[in-house]
């Protein structure tokens, strides 16, 4: 059955200018705005009964976005005793016969809750193309801009009544080379600005979001009503996409104001910080847990582009992988303890893998031919490893999967029709997943 989404954009139209509006500037510009202090999901809805029902049905996704591309050899697909394997050993897991890198002892202990794909095989070998491909699920077809996973899930899983943003990008490192360019781009694509991300974290913290003490709530509401009226009038008079985007951004800011405490790392408990921290990626993964617990449909956690180890690959992975190991372990266990794992899909991946060979700088190069990712939670079978690479890790020798297979898997796991057609006037036909690419059935529950 076709499921259609109507866009208010036309073919060939320039991307929304939303991406040019720096959200931090928005937030700072709203320093005088008021805030309702809300720290719980129920408080984000006007009707408690609806809130409870929405909370019960809400599905979520946390994407641990490992920008730069982690090495599969030092994570999910170790090759002990080979020259491509590197210096770290492999270790057994609680799934008989399955080994992962010895840098991941905590994940080894919960392997029965994870699904690992060891035979991802994609085309782009450069970051910009890889990041876009693995976030959008299809090759670009200019000038049409396919929405990223977060935007699709925001549209499919989000609630308009919810004040909590539907697509949150926790992004403590605002830089990131090609990833910086990606973040500044048009992420929501043809879905429109209302499905774009709200960025927070690190220097994108939201310290200026409290209502000034000398402004009453009434004053604030009056000002907001006036702003809305004027922007809407401008939007109608000039058919302005920019004005529309601005309104969408303000709506998101209003949401942020009401749940600002969920973004405040200073409000995290010491016990939780000790589990996930102390590094900023772990701390923001903890924020992701809290945001999901409070109703956020999609949270993406990134941290610059740290995995791009063209030099000193092992010296960098010795630090990054143990942090990732700890984050995945606690995130999965915490979601399970809270009864959230069944309806929260967790995905940990980068834009490709790293080469079996070491360059002269003791680094590994980009390698899309054969790489690994891990998933857990909603709709995902647990304790499975699918796909296999050859002894030195040069290529898949069993069940290669690409980005379309991955996106079909993610959508299916979350109960979303992977093959629904977008209803885009004056545009070519696009589907959520093109070419009817099958999901990776081996890891679907």
């Amino acid at each position, binding site marked *: 059955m076709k499921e259609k989404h109507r866009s208010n954009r036309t073919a060939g139209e320039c991307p929304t200018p939303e991406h040019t509006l720096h959200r931090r500037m928005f937030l700072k510009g709203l320093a005088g705005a008021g805030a309702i202090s809300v720290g719980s999901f129920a408080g984000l809805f006007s009707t408690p009964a609806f809130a409870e029902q929405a909370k019960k049905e809400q599905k979520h996704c946390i994407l641990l976005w490992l920008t730069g591309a982690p090495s599969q050899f030092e994570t999910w697909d170790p090759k002990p005793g080979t*020259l491509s394997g590197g210096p770290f050993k492999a270790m057994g897991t609680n799934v008989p016969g399955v080994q992962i890198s010895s840098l991941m002892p905590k994940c080894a202990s919960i392997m029965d809750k994870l699904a690992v794909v060891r035979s991802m095989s994609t085309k782009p070998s450069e970051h910009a193309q890889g990041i876009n491909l693995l976030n959008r699920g299809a090759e670009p077809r200019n000038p049409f801009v396919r929405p990223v996973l977060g935007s699709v899930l925001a549209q499919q899983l989000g609630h308009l009544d919810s004040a909590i943003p539907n697509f949150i990008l926790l992004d403590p490192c605002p830089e990131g080379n090609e990833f910086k360019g990606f973040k500044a781009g048009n992420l929501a694509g043809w879905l429109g600005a209302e499905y774009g991300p709200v960025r927070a974290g690190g220097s994108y913290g939201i310290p200026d979001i409290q209502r000034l003490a000398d402004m009453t709530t009434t004053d604030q509401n009056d000002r907001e009503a006036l702003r809305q009226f004027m922007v809407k009038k401008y939007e109608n008079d000039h058919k302005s996409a920019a004005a529309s985007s601005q309104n969408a951004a303000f709506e998101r800011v209003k949401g942020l104001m009401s749940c600002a405490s969920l973004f405040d790392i200073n409000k995290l408990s010491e016990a939780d910080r000790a589990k996930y921290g102390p*590094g900023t990626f772990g701390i923001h993964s903890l924020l992701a847990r809290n945001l999901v617990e409070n109703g956020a449909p999609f949270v993406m956690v990134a941290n*610059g582009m740290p995995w791009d180890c063209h030099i000193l690959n092992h010296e960098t992975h010795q630090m990054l992988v143990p942090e990732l190991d700890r984050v995945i372990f606690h995130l999965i266990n915490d979601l399970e303890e809270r009864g959230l794992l069944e309806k929260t899909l967790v995905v940990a991946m980068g834009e490709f893998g790293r080469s079996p060979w070491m360059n002269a700088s003791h680094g590994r190069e980009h390698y899309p031919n054969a790489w690994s990712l891990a998933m857990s939670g909603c709709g995902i079978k647990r304790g499975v490893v699918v796909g296999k690479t050859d002894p030195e890790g040069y290529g898949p020798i069993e069940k290669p999967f690409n980005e379309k297979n991955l996106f079909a898997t993610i959508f299916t796991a979350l109960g979303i029709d992977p093959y629904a057609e977008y209803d885009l006037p004056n545009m070519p036909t696009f589907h959520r997943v093109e070419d009817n690419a099958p999901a990776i059935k081996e890891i679907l529950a």
Partner: protein
Amino acid sequence: MKAEQAKTIKLPSTVLGFDVSADASHLYAACMDGGIYQIDAKTGEFESLFRHDSYASGVSVVPESSLIISSGYDGVLQWYDLATKKQIRKINAHQFWSWQSAVSSDGKFFASVTGQYLAGGLKYEPASETEPSVKVFDAQTGDTVHEFSHVPSVQAVAFSPDNQYVAAGNLMGETRVWELSTGKQLAACQTQSFTSWGIIKVHAYQGGVYSLVFSPDSESVIACGMGQMRDPNTGNGKQTWQRFAWRQKGAPKIAEIKSSEAGGGHPEALAFHPGKEFFVMSGRLAQGKWNTGFFDNKTGALIHSLDCKARITKVRFNSEGTQMFLAGGTGQPKAKDGKYDPFGRIFTYNIA
């Protein structure tokens, strides 16, 4: 001076640790494939003596004995008797890698340094050590003589020529010096020049001190590594050495490479020429003209340079100073039919 390349020896994988026998007839290499190799210096023929369970990171010929001692990323130290061709001791020295190891010139002490860099704060400041980062052993018996504390990761170690002191340098650019007779820490040479906090890609620390050498009079210590970078993953920081008067209060920096003489790249090796008039820094070249620089001991000026087109991890001289050995490797080639062409290299130069 002249440095003329005389020979290139190929080994199966990159050489991470290297030493030369007293008469320079044999070379010893610790390699990325875990092997400890003995190489005939004249013919280049080599044999594998024994192995580590991970990368072999160091090998030292123990003076006045028939022993070699190796270290590895498996955290293990191995004693091997060349006379009997038997392993005589194996010690699990560290929970993490032995990054580097060294033997004192009198053959009494052997030191190995370790430490895993783990996030210790929101900005990825290194966490405190979970085991002693510097260990000193009796080179003959294998007994532990000292365990010293440092901040991980500790990546470089060297003994003073007078055999009274040992120095160890870390990721954060701090070199500590201890007195071997008392175990007392005498100095901490601090510099931020070798350590990058990644602004562009990785909000974490990279780099640090990669090699150390004491001056011939043991009065100063020289450290080398990559200069600071906004993006450490590019590996193109300035080739840098700095010299510290470690005995003076505050262990001040008293000399460093002239910026105009440095290219970009990753120096990993330092050695003094036996004649004591110059020292050599070598490594991997990213941009510039040389990967191996010869520096005047008095002025610090670059007096000669060469580029051997490889990553160099160790520099050694024969005792007369007429031969220089550069050990390291090229990039690992892609496998052909499951096999790799050799990518370990030892370059021999005649020095005049």
